[in-house]
Protein backbone atom coordinates (compact mmCIF):
# COMPACT_ATOMS: atom_id res chain seq x y z
CA UNK A 1 0.00 0.00 0.00
CA UNK A 2 1.18 3.48 -0.69
CA UNK A 3 -0.60 4.98 2.29
CA UNK A 4 1.10 7.96 3.88
CA UNK A 5 3.80 8.11 1.27
CA UNK A 6 2.84 11.53 -0.02
CA UNK A 7 5.74 13.55 -1.28
CA UNK A 8 5.84 17.19 -2.22
CA UNK A 9 7.00 16.72 -5.78
CA UNK A 10 7.66 20.35 -6.64
CA UNK A 11 7.67 19.41 -10.31
CA UNK A 12 11.06 17.74 -10.20
CA UNK A 13 12.45 14.28 -10.69
CA UNK A 14 13.56 12.53 -7.48
CA UNK A 15 17.27 13.19 -7.85
CA UNK A 16 16.73 16.79 -8.81
CA UNK A 17 14.29 17.25 -5.97
CA UNK A 18 16.60 15.71 -3.40
CA UNK A 19 19.53 17.81 -4.51
CA UNK A 20 17.45 20.96 -4.45
CA UNK A 21 16.07 20.30 -1.01
CA UNK A 22 19.46 19.43 0.42
CA UNK A 23 20.81 22.74 -0.84
CA UNK A 24 17.77 24.58 0.40
CA UNK A 25 17.87 23.01 3.84
CA UNK A 26 21.57 23.58 4.23
CA UNK A 27 21.12 27.28 3.68
CA UNK A 28 17.99 27.23 5.80
CA UNK A 29 19.78 25.91 8.86
CA UNK A 30 22.72 28.15 8.11
CA UNK A 31 20.72 31.36 8.06
CA UNK A 32 17.70 30.17 10.06
CA UNK A 33 15.47 31.75 7.47
CA UNK A 34 14.98 31.43 3.78
CA UNK A 35 12.67 33.02 1.23
CA UNK A 36 11.47 30.72 -1.54
CA UNK A 37 8.31 29.80 -3.31
CA UNK A 38 5.58 28.50 -1.09
CA UNK A 39 5.76 25.02 -2.60
CA UNK A 40 9.47 24.69 -1.91
CA UNK A 41 9.06 26.09 1.57
CA UNK A 42 6.39 23.55 2.37
CA UNK A 43 8.45 20.70 0.96
CA UNK A 44 11.52 21.81 2.89
CA UNK A 45 9.55 22.30 6.08
CA UNK A 46 8.71 18.61 6.41
CA UNK A 47 12.33 17.58 6.08
CA UNK A 48 13.47 20.37 8.36
CA UNK A 49 11.20 19.10 11.11
CA UNK A 50 12.51 15.59 10.59
CA UNK A 51 16.11 16.77 10.82
CA UNK A 52 15.29 18.66 13.99
CA UNK A 53 13.86 15.49 15.49
CA UNK A 54 17.13 13.78 14.72
CA UNK A 55 18.98 16.64 16.33
CA UNK A 56 16.86 16.41 19.45
CA UNK A 57 17.37 12.68 19.82
CA UNK A 58 21.09 13.21 19.27
CA UNK A 59 22.10 9.56 19.04
CA UNK A 60 25.15 8.77 17.01
CA UNK A 61 23.09 7.35 14.17
CA UNK A 62 20.84 10.39 14.09
CA UNK A 63 23.79 12.77 14.14
CA UNK A 64 25.23 10.90 11.19
CA UNK A 65 21.92 11.17 9.36
CA UNK A 66 22.03 14.92 9.73
CA UNK A 67 25.66 15.16 8.69
CA UNK A 68 25.07 13.05 5.62
CA UNK A 69 22.04 15.06 4.57
CA UNK A 70 23.27 18.61 4.97
CA UNK A 71 25.93 19.80 2.59
CA UNK A 72 28.04 21.63 5.15
CA UNK A 73 29.47 20.02 8.21
CA UNK A 74 29.45 23.24 10.22
CA UNK A 75 25.78 23.64 9.59
CA UNK A 76 25.10 20.05 10.63
CA UNK A 77 26.86 20.58 13.91
CA UNK A 78 25.06 23.85 14.42
CA UNK A 79 21.75 22.03 13.99
CA UNK A 80 22.74 19.29 16.41
CA UNK A 81 23.78 21.85 19.00
CA UNK A 82 20.56 23.78 18.50
CA UNK A 83 18.52 20.62 18.87
CA UNK A 84 20.21 19.65 22.11
CA UNK A 85 20.39 23.07 23.70
CA UNK A 86 17.20 24.65 22.47
CA UNK A 87 14.58 22.43 20.90
CA UNK A 88 14.99 19.48 23.28
CA UNK A 89 13.89 21.71 26.17
CA UNK A 90 10.55 22.63 24.66
CA UNK A 91 7.29 21.14 25.81
CA UNK A 92 6.13 20.54 22.28
CA UNK A 93 7.74 17.97 20.04
CA UNK A 94 7.20 19.56 16.66
CA UNK A 95 6.47 22.94 15.17
CA UNK A 96 9.98 24.31 15.29
CA UNK A 97 9.61 25.92 11.91
CA UNK A 98 7.04 28.19 10.33
CA UNK A 99 6.09 29.10 6.79
CA UNK A 100 4.70 32.59 6.35
CA UNK A 101 3.16 33.53 3.04
CA UNK A 102 4.86 36.56 1.64
CA UNK A 103 3.33 37.99 -1.51
CA UNK A 104 4.05 37.12 -5.10
CA UNK A 105 7.27 37.10 -7.06
CA UNK A 106 7.52 39.73 -9.72
CA UNK A 107 8.74 37.72 -12.69
CA UNK A 108 6.32 34.82 -12.78
CA UNK A 109 3.80 35.61 -10.07
CA UNK A 110 4.80 32.60 -7.97
CA UNK A 111 3.62 32.76 -4.41
CA UNK A 112 6.54 33.37 -2.11
CA UNK A 113 6.93 32.31 1.46
CA UNK A 114 9.34 32.74 4.34
CA UNK A 115 10.52 29.56 6.01
CA UNK A 116 11.72 30.41 9.49
CA UNK A 117 13.34 28.51 12.29
CA UNK A 118 11.53 29.33 15.51
CA UNK A 119 14.53 29.56 17.79
CA UNK A 120 12.49 31.43 20.33
CA UNK A 121 9.27 30.04 21.62
CA UNK A 122 6.14 31.91 20.67
CA UNK A 123 4.42 33.02 23.87
CA UNK A 124 1.67 30.67 24.82
CA UNK A 125 -1.06 33.14 25.69
CA UNK A 126 -1.77 33.46 21.98
CA UNK A 127 -3.69 30.22 22.04
CA UNK A 128 -5.76 31.22 25.04
CA UNK A 129 -6.71 34.41 23.31
CA UNK A 130 -7.90 32.49 20.30
CA UNK A 131 -10.27 30.45 22.43
CA UNK A 132 -11.71 33.58 23.94
CA UNK A 133 -12.37 34.99 20.52
CA UNK A 134 -14.63 32.11 19.70
CA UNK A 135 -17.12 32.96 22.43
CA UNK A 136 -17.75 36.69 22.88
CA UNK A 137 -16.73 38.44 19.76
CA UNK A 138 -17.78 41.96 20.54
CA UNK A 139 -16.32 42.15 24.03
CA UNK A 140 -13.06 40.66 22.93
CA UNK A 141 -12.51 43.37 20.40
CA UNK A 142 -12.64 45.96 23.18
CA UNK A 143 -10.46 44.06 25.63
CA UNK A 144 -7.44 43.41 23.51
CA UNK A 145 -5.12 46.32 22.87
CA UNK A 146 -5.16 47.43 19.31
CA UNK A 147 -1.57 46.50 18.61
CA UNK A 148 -1.79 42.92 19.64
CA UNK A 149 -5.07 41.84 18.19
CA UNK A 150 -4.53 38.59 16.35
CA UNK A 151 -5.39 38.39 12.72
CA UNK A 152 -8.62 36.58 13.46
CA UNK A 153 -10.12 39.57 15.24
CA UNK A 154 -9.23 41.90 12.43
CA UNK A 155 -12.09 44.08 11.23
CA UNK A 156 -14.39 42.36 8.84
CA UNK A 157 -13.02 41.96 5.39
CA UNK A 158 -13.40 44.96 3.26
CA UNK A 159 -14.05 43.68 -0.15
CA UNK A 160 -13.07 46.02 -2.85
CA UNK A 161 -15.98 46.97 -5.02
CA UNK A 162 -16.70 44.20 -7.42
CA UNK A 163 -15.82 45.02 -10.92
CA UNK A 164 -19.07 44.41 -12.61
CA UNK A 165 -19.62 44.33 -16.26
CA UNK A 166 -23.31 44.22 -16.04
CA UNK A 167 -25.89 43.08 -18.45
CA UNK A 168 -24.76 44.77 -21.57
CA UNK A 169 -26.71 42.15 -23.40
CA UNK A 170 -30.01 42.88 -21.78
CA UNK A 171 -30.08 46.41 -23.07
CA UNK A 172 -30.23 45.34 -26.64
CA UNK A 173 -33.79 45.41 -27.91
CA UNK A 174 -35.58 42.16 -28.42
CA UNK A 175 -36.68 43.11 -31.85
CA UNK A 176 -33.17 42.73 -33.11
CA UNK A 177 -33.43 39.02 -33.67
CA UNK A 178 -36.59 39.42 -35.64
CA UNK A 179 -35.24 42.14 -37.83
CA UNK A 180 -32.10 40.19 -38.45
CA UNK A 181 -33.87 37.38 -40.10
CA UNK A 182 -35.73 39.62 -42.48
CA UNK A 183 -32.85 41.93 -43.01
CA UNK A 184 -31.39 42.65 -46.37
CA UNK A 185 -27.74 42.09 -46.99
CA UNK A 186 -27.02 45.73 -46.40
CA UNK A 187 -28.56 45.71 -43.00
CA UNK A 188 -26.63 42.63 -42.07
CA UNK A 189 -23.38 44.37 -42.79
CA UNK A 190 -24.52 47.22 -40.63
CA UNK A 191 -25.45 44.93 -37.82
CA UNK A 192 -22.13 43.21 -37.90
CA UNK A 193 -20.13 46.38 -37.91
CA UNK A 194 -22.27 47.56 -35.03
CA UNK A 195 -21.45 44.36 -33.24
CA UNK A 196 -17.76 45.00 -33.57
CA UNK A 197 -17.92 48.48 -32.22
CA UNK A 198 -20.13 47.43 -29.39
CA UNK A 199 -17.85 44.65 -28.35
CA UNK A 200 -14.90 46.86 -27.74
CA UNK A 201 -16.10 48.77 -24.70
CA UNK A 202 -17.35 45.54 -23.24
CA UNK A 203 -13.98 43.91 -23.47
CA UNK A 204 -12.01 46.82 -22.19
CA UNK A 205 -14.30 46.99 -19.23
CA UNK A 206 -13.49 43.41 -18.46
CA UNK A 207 -9.79 43.73 -18.83
CA UNK A 208 -8.96 46.91 -17.01
CA UNK A 209 -10.10 46.32 -13.45
CA UNK A 210 -7.81 44.79 -10.87
CA UNK A 211 -8.46 47.72 -8.66
CA UNK A 212 -7.24 48.90 -5.28
CA UNK A 213 -6.70 45.38 -4.09
CA UNK A 214 -3.77 45.09 -6.43
CA UNK A 215 -1.80 47.07 -3.92
CA UNK A 216 -1.85 44.21 -1.50
CA UNK A 217 -0.55 41.89 -4.14
CA UNK A 218 2.63 43.78 -4.67
CA UNK A 219 5.56 41.50 -5.04
CA UNK A 220 8.14 41.65 -2.29
CA UNK A 221 10.46 44.54 -2.71
CA UNK A 222 13.55 42.52 -3.13
CA UNK A 223 13.14 40.70 -6.35
CA UNK A 224 14.89 37.44 -6.05
CA UNK A 225 16.50 35.45 -8.74
CA UNK A 226 16.37 31.78 -8.26
CA UNK A 227 18.65 29.15 -9.62
CA UNK A 228 16.77 26.04 -10.54
CA UNK A 229 19.31 23.85 -8.94
CA UNK A 230 18.16 24.94 -5.54
CA UNK A 231 20.33 27.90 -4.94
CA UNK A 232 17.72 29.39 -2.74
CA UNK A 233 17.67 33.00 -1.87
CA UNK A 234 18.82 33.78 1.57
CA UNK A 235 17.57 36.42 3.85
CA UNK A 236 20.22 37.72 6.12
CA UNK A 237 19.15 39.73 9.02
Amino acid sequence: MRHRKTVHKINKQPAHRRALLRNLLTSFFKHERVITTRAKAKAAQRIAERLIRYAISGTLADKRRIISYLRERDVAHKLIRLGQENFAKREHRGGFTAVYKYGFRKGDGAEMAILTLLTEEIPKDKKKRKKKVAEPEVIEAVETPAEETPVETAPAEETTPEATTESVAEETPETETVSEETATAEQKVEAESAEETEEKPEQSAEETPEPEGAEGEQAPEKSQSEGEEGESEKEKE
Partner: protein
Amino acid sequence: MALPKRRHSLQRKRKRRTHWKLKGVTAVKCPNCENLMLPHRVCPHCGYYNGRPIISVKKKKEK
Protein backbone atom coordinates in the same frame (compact mmCIF):
# COMPACT_ATOMS: atom_id res chain seq x y z
CA MET B 1 -19.54 16.34 -38.30
CA ALA B 2 -21.75 18.19 -35.86
CA LEU B 3 -22.38 21.72 -36.91
CA PRO B 4 -24.44 24.53 -35.44
CA LYS B 5 -27.87 24.74 -36.98
CA ARG B 6 -28.39 28.44 -36.51
CA ARG B 7 -26.19 31.36 -35.81
CA HIS B 8 -26.45 32.71 -32.26
CA SER B 9 -27.91 36.15 -32.03
CA LEU B 10 -26.09 39.02 -30.40
CA GLN B 11 -28.51 38.81 -27.53
CA ARG B 12 -27.68 35.19 -26.88
CA LYS B 13 -24.00 35.85 -27.02
CA ARG B 14 -24.24 38.81 -24.69
CA LYS B 15 -26.51 37.05 -22.27
CA ARG B 16 -24.05 34.23 -22.06
CA ARG B 17 -21.27 36.67 -21.37
CA THR B 18 -23.01 38.42 -18.52
CA HIS B 19 -21.54 35.72 -16.35
CA TRP B 20 -18.00 36.64 -17.23
CA LYS B 21 -17.24 38.72 -14.21
CA LEU B 22 -14.17 39.59 -12.29
CA LYS B 23 -14.25 39.04 -8.57
CA GLY B 24 -12.98 41.68 -6.25
CA VAL B 25 -9.85 41.00 -4.26
CA THR B 26 -10.44 40.22 -0.63
CA ALA B 27 -8.46 42.73 1.32
CA VAL B 28 -8.06 43.06 5.06
CA LYS B 29 -6.81 45.85 7.24
CA CYS B 30 -3.48 45.04 8.79
CA PRO B 31 -4.01 44.89 12.56
CA ASN B 32 -0.61 46.46 13.05
CA CYS B 33 -0.36 49.27 10.51
CA GLU B 34 -3.94 49.63 9.24
CA ASN B 35 -2.92 49.34 5.61
CA LEU B 36 -4.88 47.10 3.31
CA MET B 37 -3.33 43.71 2.70
CA LEU B 38 -4.24 40.21 1.63
CA PRO B 39 -5.38 37.94 4.44
CA HIS B 40 -3.18 35.13 5.82
CA ARG B 41 -0.03 36.79 4.59
CA VAL B 42 2.83 38.75 6.02
CA CYS B 43 1.86 42.41 5.76
CA PRO B 44 3.80 43.91 2.84
CA HIS B 45 3.74 47.33 4.49
CA CYS B 46 5.05 46.60 7.97
CA GLY B 47 6.21 42.98 7.82
CA TYR B 48 4.00 41.82 10.69
CA TYR B 49 2.11 38.58 10.90
CA ASN B 50 -0.06 37.40 13.76
CA GLY B 51 0.97 40.34 15.90
CA ARG B 52 4.68 39.76 15.56
CA PRO B 53 7.30 41.23 13.22
CA ILE B 54 8.40 38.64 10.69
CA ILE B 55 10.52 40.67 8.34
CA SER B 56 11.79 44.21 8.18
CA VAL B 57 10.37 46.20 5.32
CA LYS B 58 12.34 48.95 3.68
CA LYS B 59 10.33 52.08 3.41
CA LYS B 60 10.12 53.74 0.04
CA LYS B 61 11.30 57.28 -0.13
CA GLU B 62 8.39 59.60 -0.52
CA LYS B 63 8.56 61.73 -3.59
